[in-house]
């Protein structure tokens, strides 16, 4: 492989002057820590890693990059699952991990202002005692950063009811790729002019570095009720999902697991799930009487659609138990299969039975097993393709199978990604969903922020240079192996 050109003379020294020598990492081991995000098949060594502590330092670092035409990749906790924070070998990584101050908790105005490196869960923790929470709850929430959430427009199991990151961000400080500081949005919605903040959320770190964010916090619901329905098949569970939606009920969360998943969960963690073809976990929340009456409706709908058993959580401990199998599904999979790849596709939820049947056909065609555990309420599928990289051809087969599943999703009017982003991983698949002119317009908008394309180049949009390469093998993220977080 070609060696990338080293940093121009003086650049390292200048970076050290900005952030202090300790916070410019150049050693091989240190850089290696940053060579990939949660999608470990894609790796590249950055020239250096810089860890600024303030917006002013980020500005100074970005200005240096701009002056020297040095590409840079913003990075939060590195839990992304699409190679969004994958370094570029001819550039540096700018890590936000030192910017973890909660700047202001303003209960009266129901908002919290944080630095971008603050972990998602820290926000809810800061307002929990006052009866509030921060709604978007990616299952990596104990580690992933608010800056990363903003970049990916992250969701979680409860976004069915509460919406995604974009619905909960009121304002952000953006350091533009040429080092200007823009204050987007603010404390009050509907600020003047174009909704640049709305564009920045979900732009995957390609239009600047977010250093501060103002978040909306939400009042904790009066009541939360959870049930687990056991169904003979994913089709009957899918019918129950459709019936709940048709009844006009919007649960806080509605998650499904198929037999493969349940068996893995049972054999490894003994979650006590019923032996069945599919399990549906439904959670409702809200004012007590409404929550309870809808809950009874959901229970009846499960039974009417063939549930052989409906378990209801009577207290917080039982609720945690019902969620345990769901939350542990991915690490359980890691134990029953040497390797797995998580796909993230979206379908209109009415197409659930058809697409799941299609996935079953693909299992046969490829000779690989696929476990389905997903956000059924909003049609966000996470098929896990199980394989063994030591078996010749398995890795390639798994990858092709994953792509075919996406094709199924797109064929029924779905999307390439519901929450993990395009990043590097799916950049080359964008043409399946967007025409050349769609992509050209996106590029024009992107270049309005970053005409030189220095900020996280090679992500989101395909280029001819990128789309010949193939990723390496998948390995579970450190956090998953450690059991700190699950992959949803």
């Amino acid at each position, binding site marked *: 492989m070609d060696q990338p050109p080293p940093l121009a003379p003086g650049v390292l020294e200048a970076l050290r002057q900005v952030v202090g020598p300790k916070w410019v990492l150049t050693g091989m081991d240190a850089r290696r820590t940053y060579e990939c995000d949660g999608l470990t098949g894609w790796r590249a060594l950055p020239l250096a890693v810089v860890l600024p502590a303030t917006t002013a330092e980020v500005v100074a670092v970005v200005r240096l990059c701009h002056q020297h035409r040095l590409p840079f990749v913003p990075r939060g906790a590195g839990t992304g699952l699409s190679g969004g924070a994958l370094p570029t070998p001819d550039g540096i990584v700018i890590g936000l991990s030192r910017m973890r101050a909660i700047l202001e908790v303003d209960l009266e105005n*129901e908002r919290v202002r944080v630095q971008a490196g603050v972990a998602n869960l820290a926000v809810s923790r800061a307002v929990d005692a006052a009866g509030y929470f921060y709604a978007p709850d990616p299952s990596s929430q104990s580690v992933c950063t608010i800056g990363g959430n903003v970049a990916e*427009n992250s969701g979680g199991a409860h976004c069915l009811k509460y919406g995604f990151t974009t619905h909960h961000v009121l304002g952000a400080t953006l350091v*533009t790729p040429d080092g200007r500081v823009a204050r987007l949005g603010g404390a009050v919605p509907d600020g003047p002019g174009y909704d640049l903040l709305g564009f920045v959320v979900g732009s995957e770190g390609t239009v600047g570095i977010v250093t501060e964010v103002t978040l909306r916090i939400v009042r904790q619901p009066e009541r939360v009720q959870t049930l687990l329905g056991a169904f003979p098949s994913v089709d009957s569970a899918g019918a129950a999902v459709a019936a709940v939606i048709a009844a006009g009920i919007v649960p806080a969360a509605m998650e499904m697991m198929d037999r493969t998943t349940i068996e893995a969960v049972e054999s490894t963690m003994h979650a006590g799930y019923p032996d069945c073809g599919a399990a549906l976990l439904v959670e409702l929340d809200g004012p007590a009487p409404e929550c309870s*009456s809808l809950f009874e409706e959901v229970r009846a709908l499960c039974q009417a659609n063939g549930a052989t058993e409906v378990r209801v959580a009577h207290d917080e401990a039982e609720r945690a138990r019902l969620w345990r199998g769901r939350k542990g599904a991915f690490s359980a999979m890691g134990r029953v299969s040497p390797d797995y790849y998580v796909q993230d596709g979206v379908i209109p939820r009415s197409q659930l039975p058809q697409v799941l049947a299609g996935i079953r056909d693909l299992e046969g065609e490829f000779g690989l097993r696929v476990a389905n555990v997903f956000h059924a309420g909003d049609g966000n599928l996470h098929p896990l393709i199980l394989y063994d990289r030591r078996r010749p051809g398995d890795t390639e087969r798994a990858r092709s199978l994953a792509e075919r599943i996406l094709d199924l999703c797109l064929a029924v009017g779905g999307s390439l990604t519901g929450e993990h982003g395009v990043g590097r991983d799916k950049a080359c698949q964008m043409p399946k969903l*967007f025409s050349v002119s769609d*992509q050209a317009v996106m590029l024009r*908008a992107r270049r309005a922020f970053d005409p030189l394309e220095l900020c996280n180049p090679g992500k989101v949009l395909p280029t001819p240079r990128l789309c010949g390469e193939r990723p390496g093998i998948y390995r579970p993220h450190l956090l998953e192996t450690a059991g700190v977080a699950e992959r949803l």
Partner: protein
Amino acid sequence: MSTRPPEAGPLAELVGPGAVRAAGAADAIGDLRPSLVVRPGTALEVAAVLRAATERGWAVVPRGGGTTLLWGGRPHRCDVVLDTTGLDALVEHAPADLVCVAGAGMRLGALQATVGAAPGFHQRLMLDPPQGEDATLGGLVATRASGPLRQRYGTMRDLLIGAQFVLADGTVARTGGKVAKNVAGYDLDKLLVGSLGTLAVIVEVALRLHPVPPVSRTVVVEGGEPRELVGFLAAVRRAPVVPSLLEVLWPDRVAILRVDSSTAGAERQAEIAAGLHPAARVVDGAEAAGWADRGRGRPWRGEGLVAGVGVPLAAIAPLLEAVEREHQRGGPVDLALRGGLGVGEIRLAPDPAALERVRLAVEGLGGHLDLRRRPAAASDLRTTPPDPVARELMGAVKGALDLGGTLSPGRLGWAG
């Protein structure tokens, strides 16, 4: 037919002679009088018209229902009005997915009637904008319009999940899709929402629908000082009550709250809300309908200019006090505020001094003000500017998508 102005020819070649006509008095945008009105029937025709206009340096102002052409600043020029009402087909309604796709020229009333009629479902687009049922979907996107229901369901920013649009150079493109959960590609939807016809002509939209809850209960609080009314708003926020709307009307000194839920749920929430203020009471039947009427499209009903205002929640009381002072001065003033959000609209005399007083008060409270209905000829009314760097970026976005400044030049004020 009136005589055709010289420019009509090239456009008639593109869209057919029946779809181009000379503009009349009814087509004026305030004091601006366009030359032509074009009514294309397809996205490709829109593209052809825009390309032709851009090549010739004509300024184009897209028009849907024509209900909000005085929003924002005064366009510098308008040669061609591009009437989108020919793009009014329902493309798809998937009730099981709570999604519909429709031409941007479809009127809100027509959409509601269609989606409301799906057998076995009871759903609608949860948007009650002041311009009413005649507004087109594209216009509602471009103005980011919303009404009292915003309290629970948000604005077009929250309901739009995909769009097809045409740039001034004729590029036809799509963004988003027709699933609510989707992070593929840049979120250009967000740029279109609130762009006031300055970035692109929206030709098709995909929208999220919501189920209509079966039962509604209304609670009204009348009378009292700003701080008392605001005490009620704060108490509602802390209570297990999820209002669909929570409107504050001033100088009426009224707060109207509505909950929509299951039977038991609505009943109890209304009871709780009614217990949060001595003057609060549950109203029903004709009286509830009367209050709904009173709140609907409120500040637009009288004469004068209408401004959008937004303040932090904690500044609602001082905002009401400022509005009360304006009321005491004797000028017409009429505020409708989403009480759980701090955003709303205010009607004032078409007098720059009144607007300036309110703007300074709102900005002093950490909020902002923009124009929703300006006096026809006024072009020098000041609104809250964006952050200076954000403004530069907005100019860059405008330049990236409409380099020649074809679309509604000047309407956004500072960004072009």
